[in-house]
């Protein structure tokens, strides 16, 4: 296992094999399924994770989110980077 590279705006995040975002109809929640763990993302995290597709850069995600939520770009950027770095430490995403 190598150290995770530091995630920045140019990074392209993706879910590694064994992690997926899935809707559960019985619970009416989106859930992140991981090895023997289930995370329930809050509304903000979900908005970010639904844009994680292995093609879109963080920079592009931030642009879209800033537009969709009509919020200052730098605020969104900081939130997104903090969230994705935390999830990368937990092995939920890679970049």
């Amino acid at each position: 296992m190598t150290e995770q590279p530091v995630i920045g705006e140019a990074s392209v995040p993706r879910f590694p094999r064994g992690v997926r975002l899935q809707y559960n109809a019985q619970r009416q929640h989106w859930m992140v399924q991981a090895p023997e763990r289930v995370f329930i993302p809050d509304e903000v995290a979900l908005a970010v994770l639904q844009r994680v597709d292995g093609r879109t850069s963080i920079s592009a995600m931030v642009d879209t989110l800033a537009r969709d939520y009509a919020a200052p770009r730098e605020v969104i950027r900081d939130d997104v980077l903090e969230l994705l770095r935390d999830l990368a430490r937990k092995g939920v995403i890679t970049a």
Partner: protein
Amino acid sequence: MSLMPPPLAILAELTHRCPLRCPYCSNPVELARAREELSTEEWIELLRQAAALGVLQVHLSGGEPTARKDLERIVLAARELGIYTNLITSAVLLDRARVDALAAAGLDHVQISFQDAEAQSADRIGGFSGGHEKKRAVAGFVRAAGMPLTANLVVHRQNLDRLGAMIGMAAEMGARRIEVAHVQYYGWGLVNRAALVPTRGQVAAADAVVAEARARLEGRAVIDYVVPDYYARRPKPCMGGWARQFLTVTPTGKVLPCHAADSLPGLRFDSIRERPLAEIWESSEAFRRFRGTDWMPEPCRSCDRREMDWGGCRCQAFALVGDAAATDPACGLSPHHGRIAALAARESEEGADAFLYRSFATVAEARGAAALTRDRARPEAAARPAPG
């Protein structure tokens, strides 16, 4: 949609067959034979019912689940139903081709158990020559196939001093999750407790090893640590509470709130051969018996931790106190706690090291040993706290 939230996960014990003979195996002392096992179609039908109920993950376990030739078909069916698949394996029956076939079927995650950091000791504990090196090789195949790997390190008095080396080995082979699990003392573990229970000093040292490794491996691997509860002050929230989050299906289709529950007397467990899974989860007598807090005796009933640890483990209460409805004696508030801790300390200091290995043939002997262990653990006249 019913009032009872659906289970998060199912432990599917596909078979009791296993080439290893670990003396702490979580399977019951009485093992099911191959001819009694559920068929492929029955397992797939179970998964269908589980998905409809809202189950998120299935742990494909055993025995050794790869002893079933239809494992790929079961994985494929689970994935098609949207269920996340964990394989809980000893790995010794796997080769590169089978690992690749399971990956192709959509297997999400593999957990391999390790018995020690040193081959000779690991093979002695598992009762299987050459097993340790095989496991290490298969861990490499799993990583090469791109699947996430968990190393399950089962620890006890006879390997705990090498925990640091075991964690190092797991990290080196690319395990993203490392489970350090102290042996649980029911079934075969109870039979072999005197040979397995760690000393207090070992447990303190292990706590420090885990803390240090967690800091060192931050960002590379997560360590889950299951503490040995004979020395704990409060019991573990066994299974997250009886029949609250998990269920186990045995090789023959019996549905249990936990994998050891079959050891409890006086409970009737339903089979998926006879009743739909949703109905069993909702309303079977055995699932309702210890669900929630209504069943609790004192000191649990008025305890402000009653919805944190749910009274601890029913199987442990029965094994040590002779009453499945008693407070888990791992709890410092149980009247039996002092005696249990003293017993663990004494057995660990006596230092017996012979194992009674798990097998299909040693049932009578193991039963005798289990009864003996229970008798030793029980107070003279089995003073049972009256329920509620």
